């Protein structure tokens, strides 16, 4: 069973590799190192792959795919990691992390495309995926049965446009969905069709009935709510992308305490906010400390905040930084489109190199194994 402890061990093994080179216990015993992370990557020629790297920093697989991919999610206690194609996002790819093979690709179906994110139910059976019905622009969460060949079992209408990242609340019953509010069409993938009448939101959804149980609205209608993570104690941090003028500096983070239902937008110092260039990529929350990292590739920086207080703790310069995951007790691992992998911590204003690969790491990292909330 892959538990939080399991991942922690894996993470620590990863950390020790940096210090002690290849002499890890696993290598001596001939055991394969645990898979640490999975990500969409591009090569220098612009070809698309899904890549897996183990805790020794070795690339375990690189699977060619037709479309550029975006985010993914690991199956709790299982062998699958699912990675989603994006723009137009017609397929999701189920990878067997044990074999490093592509097990199956599931098509979004006529009139639908994926937005690039999903999450499994705690029993590993159901997979919840954000989708667009592009004939009606209706945003939905589609439910697949992973135990039955990823058969489609339900569609939950979100009464909104452009759902993006979603996570499972630690209660195991509630889905937290970032609703970007932006209408797109796969035939015209670069164009945002409704910037003047966006209705972004942060939604809570009953994963059994599909009912929207709460809806929180950003302070400006052009603050597209895209990515999020949730802490073991139920605090959600969501990242915005501002579609208004680049010279304005609206808040870029939302915080929802699901215990109290208090929704707020933590304020950052003006100069820090301006440095993020109105665009956040990934959000990752530590499982062990009250820390969240936010990556901002346009600003070439990542920030670490205390998610309980919203206070800014650290700013770290990393070129083209985007992918992020919690790492070890206090830290984070982030990736750059230029190929670098780095470790960040709240007490260090420098990124610590953790390997470099001849790939362009795409927007998001997926844990190679399930991390319990």
């Amino acid at each position, binding site marked *: 069973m892959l538990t939080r402890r399991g991942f922690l061990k894996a993470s620590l093994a990863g950390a020790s590799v940096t210090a002690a080179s290849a002499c890890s216990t696993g290598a001596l015993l001939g055991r394969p190192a645990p898979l640490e992370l999975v990500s969409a990557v*591009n090569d220098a020629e612009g070809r698309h792959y899904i890549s897996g790297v183990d805790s020794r920093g070795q690339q375990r697989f690189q699977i060619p795919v037709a479309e550029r991919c*975006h985010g993914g999610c690991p199956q709790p206690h299982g062998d699958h990691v699912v990675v989603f194609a*994006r*723009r137009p996002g017609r397929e999701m790819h189920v990878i067997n992390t044990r074999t490093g093979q592509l097990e199956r690709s599931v098509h979004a179906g006529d009139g639908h495309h994926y937005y*690039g994110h999903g999450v499994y139910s705690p029993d590993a059976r159901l997979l919840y995926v954000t989708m667009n019905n592009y004939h009606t622009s209706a945003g939905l969460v589609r439910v697949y049965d992973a135990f039955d060949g990823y058969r489609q079992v339900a569609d939950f209408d979100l009464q909104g446009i452009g759902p993006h990242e979603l996570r499972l609340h630690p209660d195991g019953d509630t889905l937290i969905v970032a609703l970007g509010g932006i209408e797109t069409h796969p*035939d*015209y993938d670069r*164009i*945002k*069709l409704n*910037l*003047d009448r966006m209705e972004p939101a942060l939604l809570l959804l009953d994963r059994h009935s599909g009912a929207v149980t709460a809806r929180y609205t950003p302070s400006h209608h052009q603050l597209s709510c*895209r990515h999020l993570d949730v802490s073991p104690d139920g605090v959600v941090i969501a990242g915005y*992308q501002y579609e*208004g*003028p*680049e*010279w304005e500096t609206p808040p870029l983070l939302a915080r929802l305490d699901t215990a109290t239902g208090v929704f707020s937008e933590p304020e950052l110092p003006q100069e820090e906010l301006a440095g993020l260039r109105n*665009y956040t*990529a990934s959000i990752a929350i530590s499982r062990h400390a009250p820390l969240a990292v936010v990556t901002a*590739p*346009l600003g*070439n920086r990542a920030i670490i905040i205390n998610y309980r207080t919203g206070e800014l703790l650290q700013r770290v310069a990393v*070129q*083209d*930084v*985007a992918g992020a995951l919690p790492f070890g007790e206090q830290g984070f691992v982030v990736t*750059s*489109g*230029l190929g670098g992998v780095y470790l960040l911590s709240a007490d260090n204003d420098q990124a610590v190199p953790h390997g470099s690969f001849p790939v*362009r*790491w*795409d*927007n998001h990292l997926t844990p190679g194994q399930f991390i319990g909330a």
Partner: protein
Amino acid sequence: MKATTTLLRLPVMAALTLGLSAQAMAETPRAAWHAQIGHGYEQLASSTNTFAQLTSEYCAEPTDAGLQAVREQWLSAFNSWQAVRFVDFGPIEQNTRAWKFQFWPDPKNLTASKARYWLGNDKPIDVDVLSRDSVAIQGFPAAEYLLYDPQITDGERALPAERSCALLRAISGNLKQNAEGLSADWGQLQSRYLEVNDYNNGTLTSAMHALEIMADWRLAAPLGVRGTGRPNPYLADAWRSEQSLVTLRASLQGMADYFVPGLNLLMAENNAADLAEQFSIQLNKTLAHFDGLPADITPLLETEEGVASLTALLEDVRATGAILTGPVASKLGIVRGFNSSDGD
């Protein structure tokens, strides 16, 4: 040739600036860019204004000469847009403005279906209503459809038919309004643009991006050397009016007029005036191709010689971009990120 003299004069200007005192350097790269791009936006506002005016006059009193004048002014205004199309930051980025000028590429021919929808019903058409509809019906290609597409010009909806005239008046009026707004907002950006150093990189990367779009999408795609591998004239900018090379030339000329002056100053500040000169020489060479070419891409796709001349043009457009993405970017330490240039 005005274009050539402008291009040749600029490196000299940069060299002079290099040798002058700090006082003369008050003309900063961003001050030059802001002024030149602002000039381009004013041109766009003025030419769309004339287009709207000629359309109204023609529809009030239709004559063949009037229609010809409207067509010519459409092309002139479209070319003013091409000249500033390389700018992909600032107010043009707001509220899908760029798409409202030119919805392109349009693989599903949404422009035609939107126009047919408007022509086929009795709903009142005005600028306000149009500006709230799809971007596909708002811009130059929608006007081009009414002015040039045989589906319209050969049938009973040909101008000056009432609905067609009403639609063209709304499209041209909307273009004029958007161009005026763009020009005014660019003025508002001035102090910030001059203040924020990041705009040096932003302006340069927008030029790099524009040259890539010219090469990959505006030339290589219709030529069939990317994508399906089959030539497809409908992928070009202005296939309906058969002016796709004229509009491409206008975009390159726009870079010579509005981008090169600031580049010269910036490179001179960085002791690399030679790189700016190299860029101007290559851009000039690329522009010279057009002297021997027709207005449109389509006839060239039909002969081997035609394909060869388009391929040579493509190579020169690529070489122009490569000076920016290669030596200029490396001199200035510009890194174009993978995630920062295309996120989600």
